[in-house]
């Protein structure tokens, strides 16, 4: 089974701090994704990456950046955390495929609270 591991389940940070959320997958997947999940809004795509050192903005990239130095690891960075970034963050991965049919495999999420 694919395993996507997010390093923290719960995180509490102060406004203005730089925050790193780490995600590692063990199935050699090319694609990796960061979503945030908020009640009533569903999942919204922040950034994704389809190769090492490659990244693309999703629907809500403002206030975030990402790093993918190794294929198995995809980091989400909050440059200066704000209270409106309090949310559940979900990492996912999928293999590169010629069509759009590969399902995403998700980690268990990191619940971030910014105070």
């Amino acid at each position, binding site marked *: 089974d694919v395993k996507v591991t997010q390093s923290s389940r719960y995180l509490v940070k102060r406004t203005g701090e730089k925050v790193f959320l780490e995600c590692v997958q063990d199935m050699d997947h090319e694609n990796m994704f960061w979503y945030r999940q908020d009640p009533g809004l569903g999942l919204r795509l922040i950034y994704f990456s389809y190769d090492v050192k490659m990244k*693309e903005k999703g629907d809500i990239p403002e206030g975030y950046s990402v790093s993918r130095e190794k294929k198995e690891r995809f980091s989400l960075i909050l440059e200066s955390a704000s209270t409106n970034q309090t949310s559940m963050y979900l990492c996912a991965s999928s293999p590169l495929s010629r069509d759009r049919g590969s399902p*995403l495999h998700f980690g268990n999420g990191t619940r971030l609270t910014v105070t």
Partner: protein
Amino acid sequence: AQSVAQPEDQVNVAEGNPLTVKCTYSVSGNPYLFWYVQYPNRGLQFLLKYITGDNLVKGSYGFEAEFNKSQTSFHLKKPSALVSDSALYFCAVSPRVGAGTALIFGKGTTLSVSS
């Protein structure tokens, strides 16, 4: 714009009764459609997908979904609900061809099965 809509925030059903969780979509071209389930404090788990072929798709845990092109719907169904089916369900569409394959998710429907 590509999108999915889940018109019900919550669905309540008695154990043993059939259940339906609704999803409608708006895409250009052929739709690639997915259902995911999320249990409390967990990431999303893939249930099933429709790419092409038979309009009735079977997935995990006894779930199935019916694709209806004329109504642009992809409703999730199960003939006999279990209390353990209580969870948050997300419909999703894959809008991009090629690299990335990021999904666009609906806002989610909470399914509550009572004993």
